[in-house]
């Protein structure tokens, strides 16, 4: 609560001529920036379990080990599949560059072929490995983009009893809209933790597309950590649950893990 008061005080000071209703709420762009200012640790090792469910209720479960490390502002992510056995050992490596102009690099290692394949620069709006989140969603995780949208702060709402800013986002231009695959989005950002707790998005034609719910946020090694994401695709009725277990920020992860060679050799 203190931080909110502080922010409110700042807004008052900066923009004292505004009417009261507007003064009360924090600027959306500022909220977006705040989500990037959180402590995420440098390295993170965790188990990522993806449960994919189609509209008939059939489920595919994929258990993976996921490693993440920041190299300055560059983020590298490595995922190894453990089950089902048919894809065991399949590895996925991605380099997210901070510069918007530079395409991210992605590789997939197929043990059955004993070959690493580079995945040609995926669209940011492409679906991530059969889930309902896009590459962009995965990259941001609990953050919201600082560059892509114009934000309007609507009001304060409670999600799971946590006070959140509800902000509405519209892509800055048509190119961004097409690239992301969203014509509009709403984010509920926790006003204390600066993490998204919920989001809704609409496709390019304006149809309701997805609802994302993030839950079970608790501190691990003194860092606020998410443990559960539920994504519902309203168009395809497809659903994805991401579960994060055994989150570990302390184990040192050597830079060598995040290379093409390590992808082949495994953990």
């Amino acid at each position, binding site marked *: 609560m203190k931080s909110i008061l502080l922010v409110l005080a700042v807004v008052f000071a900066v923009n004292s001529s505004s009417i009261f209703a507007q003064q009360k709420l924090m600027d959306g762009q500022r909220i977006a920036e705040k989500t990037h200012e959180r402590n995420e640790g440098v390295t993170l090792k965790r188990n990522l379990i993806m449960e994919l469910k189609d509209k008939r209720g059939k489920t595919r479960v994929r258990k993976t080990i996921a490693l993440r490390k920041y190299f300055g502002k560059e983020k590298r992510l490595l995922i190894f599949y453990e089950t*089902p056995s*048919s894809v065991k050992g399949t590895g996925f490596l991605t380099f997210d560059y901070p510069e918007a102009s530079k395409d991210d690099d992605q590789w997939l290692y*197929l043990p059955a072929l004993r070959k690493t*394949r580079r995945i*040609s620069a*995926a669209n940011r709006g492409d*679906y991530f490995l059969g889930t309902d989140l896009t590459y962009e969603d995965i990259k941001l995780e609990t953050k919201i983009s600082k560059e892509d949208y114009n934000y309007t702060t609507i009001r304060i709402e409670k999600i799971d009893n946590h006070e959140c800013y509800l902000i509405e986002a519209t892509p800055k231009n048509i190119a961004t809209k097409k690239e992301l695959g969203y014509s509009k989005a709403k984010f509920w950002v926790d006003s204390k933790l600066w993490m998204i707790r919920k989001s809704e998005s609409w496709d390019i034609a304006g149809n309701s597309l997805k609802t994302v719910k993030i839950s079970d946020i608790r501190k691990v090694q003194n860092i606020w950590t998410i443990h559960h994401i539920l994504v519902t695709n309203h168009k395809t009725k497809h659903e994805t649950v991401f579960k994060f277990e055994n989150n570990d920020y302390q184990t040192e992860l050597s830079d060598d893990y995040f290379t093409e060679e390590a992808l082949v050799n495994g953990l």
Partner: protein
Amino acid sequence: MKQNRVEAFFNKVVSNYRVILVVCALLFLGSVMFLPKLSKDTRYDAFLPAKDSVLIKRNQLKETFGLKDPMIIAIVNDKGIFNKNSLKIVYEISEQLKSISGIDPDQITSLSTENNIVGTDSGILVKPFYDIEELTDEKALEVSKSIDDFELYQGSLVSHDKTTTLIVAEMLDSYDMKQHEVYNSLHEMISQYNIKDHKFYLAGEGAVSGYLIKYIDEDAMRTNPFAGLVIALILIFAYRTIRGVLLPNLMVLASVGIALGLMAAFGVDFFVITNGLPVVLIAIAVADGIHILGEYYELAIKHTNYTQKELVVETMVKMWRPIAITSFTTISGFMSIALSSYMPPMIYFGVFGALGVLVALLYALFMIPSAMMLLKPQKSRVFKSVDKVDKFGNIMLLLGSFVVKQPKTILISGILIIILGIVGALKLLINEDRIKNFQSDEPIVIADQLINNKTDGTSYLDVLIETPQNEDLFKIENLQKIDSLQNYIESISYVKGSTSIVDFIKKMNQSMHENQEAFYKIPDNNQLVAQYFLLYSASGDPTDFDNYIDYDYKLANVRFRMNSGEYINEKEVINKAQKYINTHFTSSQIKATLSGKVAVDTHWISKLGVNHFLGAIIALLVVLFVSAISFKSLIAGVLTVIPVTISVLFIYTVMGVMDIWLAVGTSMFAAIAIGVGVDFAVHTIDRLKYFLNEKKLPIKEAYTEFYKSAGRALLFNFLALALGFSVLMTSSVPPLNQFGFLVAIAVIVSFLGSMTLLPAIILLTKPKFFINKK
């Protein structure tokens, strides 16, 4: 019933004529009220009962793989479709389709919606064939090359000569009975595209159903009033009085109105062949009225001093029996269709046809005498005196004298027809094609032909592949089985192409090996297949393979495309495919089941032949039974069925000569022809027995009496039936057209048989039933 009891009964009827008329009117209005509820079902699925195992399997398949009856739009540019302009049109139509109600926006397949799988030097890329913003003529040529490299889409999405491309749009299930609305929207949409060099066509299973709803509506609007008009004209000729035209017509109206009204009330759908029912009922129902009025006018001449009540009661006392017998034989005909058929449309045709005839009988027995009570006694100008015969009577007398002179010639002709008929029956071709429901110059037929000529075709055979465990479809041996099945079935005539998950796996394998053609094959390890799918998901949509494989990788659908919808061609494919499955899919590890339109069609049409002959035999037996009981003589019963048997056999010869298929519409002719045609024989035997046995007239005199009275009434009965059924020949729905033609011919033959062969046989054999030899 004893004569005096019958008289007492009809006395009661005419005394309570007001009540009866009110009840009749209420019954009619009460039924007709439901008519707006009547819904039309023109899908080919409608030919199977909802609990049929083949249909259930097919619906499961549709549900699992999201398959529905498609609307197919063909875009033709004779200069080739791989240019900026044509591909832009493909894009625009595909986008526009998404907003048309009834179309599933996620199930549109076209060059602009599908993804290309490209092998790059470093990996694999899934991306749309083209991006509308970057589309140029050069890019369009690249799309052409992509299709060259993607066997799967050759023939299915783009014709081999590259002049035609298809847009396939699946309909939402909620539009099952409203395909015509979707058809109309689509038709309107494509007619707005008026672009140089481009032609647009609309076909596909969904379009055929939609078109058919519109088509049979328009047809009914034309044939039903026309049938009424024809009947009215015949009645005018028969009696030249207003009541003589009006009363039988009221009966007809009641029969048709109540039969259809009750159909609606019971929630029975209106099928394509149901369209023939009103016309059939019009022709049949009027007969009772003709006979009653004929008798009435004859009595009016004989007994000028009778009151109207006396005239009416005496008419009914004389006529109730033949009318009841003929109605029951006709009902038997309809019921034999209902009993022998497996297909709901035919069962309902039989049931509601029988109901209509029953209503006509009840209205003849109650409504006509009651309505007559509102009127004064009247003579018809046609019936001038007891002894005077008009020209229609004279025609019949002429026929009578020929029979008396040449009985042997007639008998030999009868035997000849029987022999020819048996030969014809053995050569009957059972066949059906839904597109033959339309005249050959209808736009839907032209579109269908074009698409079948240019591409792999619009008739689908789906094969459901089932395995016991999750991910069993990653197994190489299973994939190879599917591949061999595809190769085999594609080698059968009329099968032009197929699509399965195997095709995508091969394409992925090729892409992963620098696009080398040698790698367009199933890879050789299970894990690799699983990993290809994972790789694909790195840039493709999660739902991309929904139409081909289920989420557990346990079930797969293989879709074969045929360019013929004819039963005999489909049957050939089904038989061969089933034989192949029986020998190659024997293990419990992988199962294959034939399904889809082609399998469903074959399943129900294969029952058509057996149903037809069974229906005809049941009808004959029931008619034999009813007449033998009524006449209390087996000989009389056998004689009754002779003319109809000959009429049916004659039709087989006609079908053989004119190359008419035994199909849905035509297969019903025999039972109807028997039930209706037997009336002539019943009246003939009834009257001849009366003149010969009861009045004990010498043969010549008895025959003269028969031909000038009963013969004349039968002539009008015959004209009403023959012309009534001929009205169906003006129908633009070919199966109804042929049905009408066949029944009309059968009616002619059974009328002539009853008027010539039957008296000839009696003359030659002199059975005891007619001639007391004592």
